[in-house]
């Protein structure tokens, strides 16, 4: 509870910005951009390279593939994806920073880059050390249980059951130090007074298998990643970690409904280029990536991942604001958690 009070001021801006839930997107966010743009000085003359700091099969790999395809369809310029997984995104970021600032390299990255900078300011700040081209996915988290669960059936009965277990209840999570997941779990346990053991799975499949197989009691995840389990009726969301209920989960209680007073943290993915890239090339890249966001193929992909329930689009300034708010929010939380903030 203490966290939320200290952070409310900075987080309200983010929540208000992101919580345009239930909005129908008849018009796409970058529709106002021109349908074409001249290549500045013939740039780009060859394929671009997109550094992706995660493997091809995960959420980042998939969004990179979808965006690369959309940009290529729009501009006719090929994009080679260069996956450099490892170190929670550090390896890919390091490789990207070492590449020339000529506009031929772009980086896909997630909010981990912001939280890494929040914890250690020697790590690149994506808002100032890079130029954001577009943020194309912003999503929220939920708590899931098995649909055939008979020990509890909703958030209230779950909290009651967890409290009765005296810390023996378990939830599958990605609980790396300082991660969005761990911080949000801290918010939840403080707000409810429940003690629950987090089981850390760094890969999705074993994490989802753990809930499906009854190895854990609950799962913390984003809805797009478990959509197949939701559609199949295997998993059931019992809490949406947003202030208001999004339309697709109208029957799932939100933080407000559950009486939890903290500001939600978001998972976001976006695309960046180097700070030293010539201005006219940056403008072309911004146009290409922001316009590609509204390509039908990309929109279809985002819809399939529940990425249209809250507004996912941020342009350069919007992304910088999102990152700055997030970094400020995380720094406050880390200090409260007693982590060493460098």
């Amino acid at each position, binding site marked *: 509870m203490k966290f939320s009070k200290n952070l409310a001021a900075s987080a309200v801006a983010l929540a208000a910005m992101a919580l345009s839930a239930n909005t129908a997107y008849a018009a796409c966010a970058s529709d106002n951009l021109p349908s074409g743009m001249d290549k500045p000085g013939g740039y780009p003359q060859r394929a671009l390279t997109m550094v992706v700091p995660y*493997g*091809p*099969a*995960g959420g980042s*790999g*998939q969004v990179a*593939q979808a965006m690369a*395809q959309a940009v290529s369809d729009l501009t006719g310029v090929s994009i080679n994806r*260069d*996956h*450099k*997984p*490892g*170190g*929670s995104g*550090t*390896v890919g970021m*390091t*490789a990207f920073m070492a590449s020339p600032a000529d506009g031929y390299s772009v980086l896909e990255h997630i909010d981990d880059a912001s939280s890494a900078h929040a914890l250690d300011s020697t790590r690149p700040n994506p808002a100032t050390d890079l130029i954001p081209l577009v943020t194309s996915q912003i999503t929220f988290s939920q708590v899931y249980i098995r649909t055939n669960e008979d020990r509890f059936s909703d958030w209230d009965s779950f909290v009651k059951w967890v409290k009765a277990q005296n*810390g*023996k209840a*378990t939830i599958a999570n990605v*609980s*790396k*130090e*300082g*991660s969005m997941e761990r911080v949000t779990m801290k918010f939840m346990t403080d707000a409810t007074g429940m003690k629950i*053991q*987090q*089981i*850390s*799975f*760094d*890969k999705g*499949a*074993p994490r*989802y*298998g*753990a809930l*499906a*197989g*009854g*190895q*854990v009691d609950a799962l913390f995840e984003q809805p797009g990643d478990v*959509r*197949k*389990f939701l*559609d*199949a009726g*295997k998993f059931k969301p019992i809490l949406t970690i947003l202030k208001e209920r999004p339309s697709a989960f109208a029957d799932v209680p939100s933080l407000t409904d559950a009486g939890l007073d903290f500001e939600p943290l978001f998972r976001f993915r976006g695309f960046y280029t180097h700070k030293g890239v010539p201005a006219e090339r940056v403008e072309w890249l911004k146009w290409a990536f922001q316009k590609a966001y509204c390509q039908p193929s990309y929109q279809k992909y985002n819809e*399939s991942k529940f990425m249209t329930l809250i507004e996912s689009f941020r342009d350069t300034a919007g992304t910088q604001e999102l990152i700055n708010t997030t970094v400020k929010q995380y720094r406050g939380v880390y200090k409260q958690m007693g982590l060493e903030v460098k």
Partner: protein
Amino acid sequence: MDTWNNFLQGTITLFSDPIGILIFFGGVIGGMLFGAIPGVSMLTLAAILLPFTAHLSPEHGIMLFSVIYCTGVYGGAITAILFNIPGAPENAPTAFDGYPMTQNGQAGKAVGAAVMCSALGGVVSTIIMMIATAPIADWAISAFGPPEIFALVFFGLAVAASVGAKTFWKGWLSILIGLMVAVVGLDPVGGIERYDFEMPYLLAGIHFIPTILGFFAVSEIFVQAEKKVRGSYQAPKMSVDFPSLQELIAHKFAVVRSIVIGFFCGILPGIGATLAAFMGYNEAVRWSKTPEEFGKGKLEGVISSETANNAATGAAMIPLLALGLPGGALTAMMVGVFQMHDMEPGPLVFLNSADLVWVVFAAMFFANCSILLIGFLETKTIINLLRIPFQFLAPMILLLATVGAYAVRGLTIDVVVMFLAGVVGFFLRRSGYSVAGIVLGLILGKIGEQTFAQAMQMLHFEWSGFFNRPIALLLLVAGLLTLCGSIYGAFFKKASAPAPTGSDHPPEPPPPAGG
């Protein structure tokens, strides 16, 4: 009866469509070729083809990937046997005995056994997959959580310590070296940075593929180059003698055992064919009356490894199709193919796209059968690669290995690791340590550390929790008994044995790969 009818329908659909037939055979040959070339594995082919599958029908796209999966796992055995370069990690144990067989002039026999056993393992696991996908998947994820997988890893390590090394101590030291290397990089549970020496690229950890390429391919080139300089180099003898039916029947228990192990490892999400191959090989050693012959060119070693890794392919499709849980990198890419066609693998696939599932099942069945046919036809051609003189072959192998090491993650450090492993492996092999043990320690160490931490979290940091999980307890006890058995063998049997099995100064020539 339904299963049979569905299978027939899937077969008819598959072979009544000329495009489908073309894609099927393209996948069979492509998988074998890319599987056989080190580094540019079936994963490389799959990554290249992934965007193009958007233009194929869902049946064709998913069928193509499943066929590549089956034949790619087999293809990697060829270079493992002929040149000591496993085409993929799951073929590494195949090299332990396959390459010594090549050196002994039995290349044809080793490749022939790989062909037959890969086909057999694959076909059997595909049949089981067709019959019982849903119940097996449900059982696997409910019966095998982190404590059970950790116990399985412990058991595997206990067995592996007796593989390939000259002495008990060197076996365990080899495993421990592998385990130590496995902790470089981010801690898999808490994300703590370890042993990175301020080098960000080390945070990605030491990957086992460059390590395997270094230990096996590069160090082998050093060994052969040394022989060449000393004038003791002898080109491997050519042979296209396939194993006789009697020889294969003599190993029927090894085949059945490896099918069970391979299938079992394959159905566990995140475990897959690599562990299957190592476990299949380890168990062959453990059950053998002549374990000392392994690593020196024993046919059973090739049979066990290749049966197990292909048995894992059908099994890995079970959690993917029934639950949407990919067991490895290639099955994870298959999820991408499903998604490109607005589908998600999982329970709904059987409900909404039963036709597609049965086309895939039929394709996997016939892909495994075609390993037998095409494998035999190509073997006689491929073995002629051994005619290439060493001075031309060695640079080609080094080039392929370098490309392969870099291709894994696009990191230069992986190439450095490969050459370092090559140099280290060159000296370790001369001194009786087991490079196979190091590789296994590295692979299992990463899985073991993660599942141990998860198990401790699940058991609330109480060791006694293992006693409440019968499967985990059984595997831990089996591991402990194996450990006690090897200690007994090392300290008590030694006294009564006139000829010690180990020495710090092994005789020339140096022990083969894996030894």
